[in-house]
């Protein structure tokens, strides 16, 4: 008989170890999956995890991509982790990301063709506000009517996607685009372009913002009263009430922060790597960021590394589909499995596995 025995204290060792264990397990099962798809599993794993960084042929292109892809993931995941810590389940980051991008791009395009250094900051502000507003909807409904924020935030993703389809072929459509859907290319207009700060590194303003967010979140959670209140609300809601924590305020704070960061991520993406508002410029970062947040243990530093790792699977996945013909959907499955194995192995943190003989309770 295998039995779970509750630990007196959560295990420090396993808190650090389970993400690594989950990655290893995912590699093993993923390798079996790649083998079933008809590729050499070892080559596939090497192509995904090693080649983007160290292969002579691809590294020059892939290395900067690491930061480009990790930036939005980290930025969104930092915001989400605050809510998840407090037991507020915002799973609609994808929608907040889209709305942020639309608002940011809209602000930039409104000034076209004026050139000014003030335009880009205004775009950041518009993106942040757009994402914030989209996330505040579930916050208001939750605090005012007790509506489940999981379902509302998710439904708003579909609404945002419909809006995106609308503006890409309507309001924000490039008038000089020969009738093709999609906005003007923001990355090619000096005032609206989110350029690399250091050439050839992939370090654009969004990545910089992500790093600042990591530091900010770390300080907030470990040194500030609000961070303590967020953690308390998640771990012991009743105790938080007695300690005078205002739950409404926490809901607004967590959802608002997540929306702001996701909106900014969307704006940086659309003005840099994506370049323009198109019907499918969003590549699902809002959902992958959920995996990043959990893989990073909802801890800012952990999220930083988890974001880089997840970015690596994106780039490696593209490489694997190019070189080995592995379908890109396999990578999506790979990322999903990672979350699954992480949640499965998390049992070791608070429980000890005991082998007992005979009948147990």
């Amino acid at each position, binding site marked *: 008989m295998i039995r779970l025995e509750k630990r007196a204290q959560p295990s420090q060792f396993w808190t650090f170890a389970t993400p690594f264990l989950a990655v290893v397990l995912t590699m093993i099962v993923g390798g079996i999956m790649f083998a079933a798809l008809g590729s050499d599993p070892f080559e596939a794993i090497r192509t995904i995890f090693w080649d983007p960084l160290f292969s002579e042929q691809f590294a020059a292109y892939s290395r900067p991509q690491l930061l480009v892809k990790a930036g939005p993931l980290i930025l969104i995941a930092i915001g989400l982790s605050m809510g998840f810590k407090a037991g507020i*389940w915002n799973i609609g980051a994808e929608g907040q990301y889209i709305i942020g991008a639309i608002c940011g791009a809209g602000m930039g395009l409104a000034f076209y063709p004026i050139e000014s250094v003030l335009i880009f900051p205004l775009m950041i502000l518009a993106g942040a506000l757009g994402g914030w507003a989209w996330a505040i909807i579930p916050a208001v409904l939750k605090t005012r009517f007790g509506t489940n924020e999981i379902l509302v935030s998710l*439904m708003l993703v*579909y609404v945002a996607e*419909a809006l995106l389809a609308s503006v890409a072929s309507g309001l924000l459509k490039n008038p000089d685009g020969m009738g093709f859907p999609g906005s003007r290319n923001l990355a090619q207009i000096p005032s609206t372009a989110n350029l690399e700060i250091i050439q050839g590194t992939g370090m654009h303003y969004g990545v910089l913002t992500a790093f600042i967010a990591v530091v900010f979140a770390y300080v907030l959670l470990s040194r500030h009263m609000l961070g303590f209140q967020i953690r308390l609300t998640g771990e012991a809601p009743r105790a938080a009430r007695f300690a005078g924590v205002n739950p409404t305020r926490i809901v607004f704070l967590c959802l608002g922060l997540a929306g702001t960061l996701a909106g900014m991520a969307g704006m940086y993406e659309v003005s840099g790597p994506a370049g323009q508002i198109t019907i499918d410029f969003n590549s699902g970062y809002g959902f992958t960021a959920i995996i990043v947040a959990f893989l990073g243990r909802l801890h800012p530093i952990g999220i930083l590394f988890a974001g880089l790792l997840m970015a690596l699977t994106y780039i490696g996945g593209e490489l694997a589909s190019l070189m080995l013909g592995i379908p890109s959907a396999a990578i*999506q*499955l790979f990322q*999903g499995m990672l979350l699954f194995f992480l949640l499965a192995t998390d049992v070791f943190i608070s429980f000890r596995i005991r082998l007992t003989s005979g009948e147990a309770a």
Partner: protein
Amino acid sequence: MDLSSINPALLIASLMVSATPILLAALGELVVEKTGVLNLGVEGMMITGAICGFAIGVNTGSPVLGFMFAAMSGALLSLAFGILTQYLLSNQVATGLGLTLVGLGLSSLIGKPYEGIKSPTLQKMELPILSDIPIVGPMLFSHDPMVYFSVALVAATWAVLKYTRAGLILRAVGESHDAAHALGYKVVRIRILAILFGGACAGLAGAYISLVRVPQWTEGMTAGAGWIALAIVVFASWKPWRVLIGAYLFGGVTVLQLNLQAAGAKVPIEVLSMSPYLITIAVLVIISARGNHGAPAALGKIFHASQ
């Protein structure tokens, strides 16, 4: 706009078809939630059921086999959720989300070779005598077997939950797992069975979309139907017949929206296509504003026998 082009009898008939997947998925989730488990992976199980049912339907030429296989694939996927949440005590919200992500990835991986193929679909089953009634006949009694099956399943679920010992035990587990455990019921086993039932229902629901309603495979074709099913359970206050009402109301809105688009309504197409989601939000708000009655007391709580 030409409203007279919308035929009410046809509208109700297509409403039942469009509501059936949500009805099946919501009914499965209702049973799961009645045992106190919140499985947010409905969307993932549905889309996996959709592609598995479609693949088997195309390869064997038999939609019935497709449905059976879809139910099995949904159940298998839900078993992963069951093992994680019941034996490894993981967080149900996170695990359900993970299940959805896995299901979406898995389905698009399996589905690549099947894009653009038409599947065999279910034959209409005209109920004798009843389908000859004018207006009501073609409206209610001339559907494919899955529509009748879904309504029968509502009745069966209602009867089992309300009148049988099994239903009573199931509800007890959902209201207080500690009390149920103290009475000697196998909480984990009962929950796993309910989760399997929910997975099978979601699989059937997905297959209904890919084999009957569309009938084709496109990536991400469930388009949030699984999430809407979750919302319908809340709307229904965890009561089977109200799930039926909720699903049919929702199906009505969807069909009406499509009919309005076809009739050339002066409403922008984006507004119409986002309306199902906006209406879901509005309904959730109205229901939650009245208070959270009917939710099983142990919903989403982790059970470990040593406590």
